[in-house]
């Protein structure tokens, strides 16, 4: 029974891959509708990644647009040596890294830092309260926690942040992340360790 289900899944995956390949070929031949179709398949994920990497929606939109435009301009260079998803994500992550590095080197472009009004409460107490319901106070508390998380995220380097996001929010394997970022799995792993330590230190410190 399990074997049969797995067989069906792999057949479905193969069919999906073949369909995607056909779309990519059409897009490479100049079929704009095919490219639009490819965009619709992945743009939620791309926007989610962009939104988590940068705080402002305008910045996320910039990354989204620049990423897809780069993909469009370079589509003729795609040689089917990896999946379209991997290729697209490689472009988007590089675009996002460029964006993060630019913002790091130009702090005047940063949005105003959120106010730190934690009131001295235990971090995990707040976290437990925040999930309790739709109470406005709790919602406000949740917002504060979100701001503290954002502050903690800002302590990560662009690469650490990228690895952490892709691992924990996009469920990607470290090997794939390393491949996407043009580095080794080991380097990606070390980035994940550093990111985790930093987040732990920043978020545990307010307990």
């Amino acid at each position, binding site marked *: 029974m399990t074997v049969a289900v797995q067989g069906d899944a792999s057949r479905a995956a193969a069919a999906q891959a073949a369909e995607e390949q056909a779309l990519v070929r059409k897009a490479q031949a100049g079929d704009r509708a095919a490219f639009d179709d490819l965009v619709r398949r992945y743009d939620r994920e791309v926007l989610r990644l962009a*939104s*988590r990497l940068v705080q402002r929606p305008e910045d996320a939109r910039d990354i989204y647009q620049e990423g897809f*435009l780069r993909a469009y301009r370079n589509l003729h260079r795609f040689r089917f040596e990896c999946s379209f998803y991997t290729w697209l994500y490689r472009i988007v992550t590089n675009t996002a890294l460029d964006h993060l590095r630019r913002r790091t080197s130009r702090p005047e472009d940063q949005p105003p830092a959120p106010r730190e009004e934690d009131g001295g409460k235990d971090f*995990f107490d707040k976290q437990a309260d925040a999930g309790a319901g739709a109470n406005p106070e709790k919602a406000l508390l949740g917002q504060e926690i*979100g701001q503290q998380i954002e502050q903690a995220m800002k302590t990560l380097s662009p690469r650490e942040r990228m690895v952490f996001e892709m691992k*924990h929010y996009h469920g990607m*394997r470290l090997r794939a992340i390393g491949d996407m970022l043009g580095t080794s799995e080991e380097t990606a792993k*070390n980035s994940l*360790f550093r990111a985790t330590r930093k987040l732990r230190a920043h978020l545990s410190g307010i307990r």
Partner: protein
Amino acid sequence: MNAHNDDNNARFSNVHRGGIDPAAQTCRDWEDLIVLAAANDELDAAELARLNSHLAGCANCTAALARENNLLRMLAEHAAEPSGALLASCRASLEDALDREEEHGWISRMFGPILPANWLAPRPAWSAAVLLAAGFAVGILAPRAVVQIAARHGYAGRVAGVAATPSPAAPSTANAETAGNDSSASDTAFESSNSAKAPAFSPGPLDLHYADVAGINVSPSGGGSAPPEVVLHFNAQQPSTVRGTVNDDDVKSVLLDVIRHSNRLDPDICMNALDVLHSCNNDPEVRAALCRVVREDANPNVRLKALQALDGSDPEDIVRNTLVDALAGDQNSDVRIQAVDELRDWAASGQVGPDKRMLSVLRSRVQSDPDDYVRAQSAATIREIAAKQ
């Protein structure tokens, strides 16, 4: 901080590979493995089994794994999802951008392969060669082409009074006849050595650029006070010559152009031009140009020749001041000698009065000029001026 990280990495590697006896490991050694355990699918079966076996007997690490999972759960719960409005706005912006890209892009797709930027970018050597060729074309060929085109256009409106003479390289009966018939009509003639049928034209400052003068030949006049005949040779794709005397406006214009740009031209050509202009040094335009050469040319031989070309000119202020300045400041003794000689001639003929500045310079030269002749001539000039007073 880096040392700490290296230390941690080394510990992790050992634990990860099972290189340390589990009994000797501390909880810190398991830290990174716990991070990987919390991140799904990153530990293989053997690593997972080893970690589970450790966790079974270690409350600290079990608690650490729970904290790790809590941290990730908390981060996931507070991770904001992009709104549908933002996604819609992004899609709309991308549509517009792709539309613009498509409009612009069809040109690239059609002509991309032949656009220089596309095939030169990956080939630096080709790029360098193309740049050199472009530089050569713009710097060398274009000015010549412009001169030629200007010459052709100039022909239509300014043939009157100009006789075409046959080219020695490509004689033409028709042109020979024309030259024979019209040579008396004008002293100036244009010759083209490559095209016997090339029309004659009257060269002017716009037609014949100084930079294209390749040489100046001067033939003594037949006698009397007639000026010498001048032949100007021009470099061009179609080499040409202009024949005439300095009294011809076109010839004078080219000669003036030559000395105005004396610093950029072959000194021999400049000195030939200065020689020719000597005969009309009372022409204000020529006089001013000669004075400029005396003051500004970098080559002392050219400055000396310009002073000689001024010899015999009327004692106008501009010339007197030029001579005085040359005597006062020129580093070349031959130039100073020429200047003081001319001043003395003027003084001897009573053409100069007791100009204060001139006297001051002469006295200064008497006292301090390193050249004996200049000192002696300066003293003699002062005496001549005094005698005339």
